[in-house]
């Protein structure tokens, strides 16, 4: 597996982190996330529609209170540069019955998408890190949590 040079955290601009947002539901949350990607210059506004379309065909809810909204493959031309946005909804947003506290919105052309997903999944498989992400109140905490922690994986291998 090729790796993203700077990891997921390298794609996350500081101004693409919003830790105190509120959304009335899934689609509202996706629009907020998409707008952050638009405002930070990562995508064209129409990418938000591609995100909504993608969510209607298959849920991007990952578990652990985290969803990873992103566009359809048809929306890739609307991406100016690969980027992430992290938007936290402290009151939770209803995601087809699941409460979502953190959205990690993804804009990635080509295969970058799979690598970012794999990395985020590795972070969230650690319940302590997932909880820390849901409860994060500082940008620094989010950036640190999205940086892969190799020590954790070594411990897991030892216990197998």
């Amino acid at each position, binding site marked *: *597996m090729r790796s993203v040079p700077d990891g997921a955290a390298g794609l996350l601009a500081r101004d693409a982190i919003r830790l105190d947002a509120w959304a009335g539901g899934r689609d509202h949350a996706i629009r907020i996330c998409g707008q952050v990607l638009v405002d930070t210059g990562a995508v064209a506004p129409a990418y938000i529609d591609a995100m909504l379309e993608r969510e209607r*065909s*298959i849920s991007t809810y*990952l*578990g*652990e209170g985290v969803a990873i909204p992103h566009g359809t*493959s048809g929306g890739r031309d609307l991406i100016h540069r690969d980027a992430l946005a992290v938007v936290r909804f402290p009151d939770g947003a209803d995601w087809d019955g699941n409460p979502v506290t953190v959205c990690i919105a993804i804009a990635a052309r080509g*295969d970058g998408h*799979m*690598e970012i*997903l*794999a*990395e*985020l*999944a*590795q972070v*969230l*498989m650690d319940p302590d890190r997932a909880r820390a992400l849901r409860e994060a109140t500082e940008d620094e905490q989010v950036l640190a949590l999205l940086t892969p922690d190799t020590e954790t*994986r070594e411990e*897991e*291998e030892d216990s*197998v």
Partner: protein
Amino acid sequence: MAERNVVIAAAQGLHARPAQLFVQAAARQPVPVSIRVGDGAPVPANSILGVLSLGARQGTEVTLAAEGDAAGPALDELAGLLARDLDAEQPA
């Protein structure tokens, strides 16, 4: 411990709908099934996070493993799923 090696057929790799269908099928099996890539740590096949964490693309070989009398049929069914490009078969 029974094992099956299978090459991912889905054009988009093991994520999105192929991953969801696989995880759902794994959850229906009477025995716990694990999935790994190469010598990597195995993850539960019924966990979407675990399956996504593998980052398995089209052409990646994965290993499914399970124990017990029901392991054989369970592994055959799941390996069969991964060996097909479900998205190419089902119009969206």
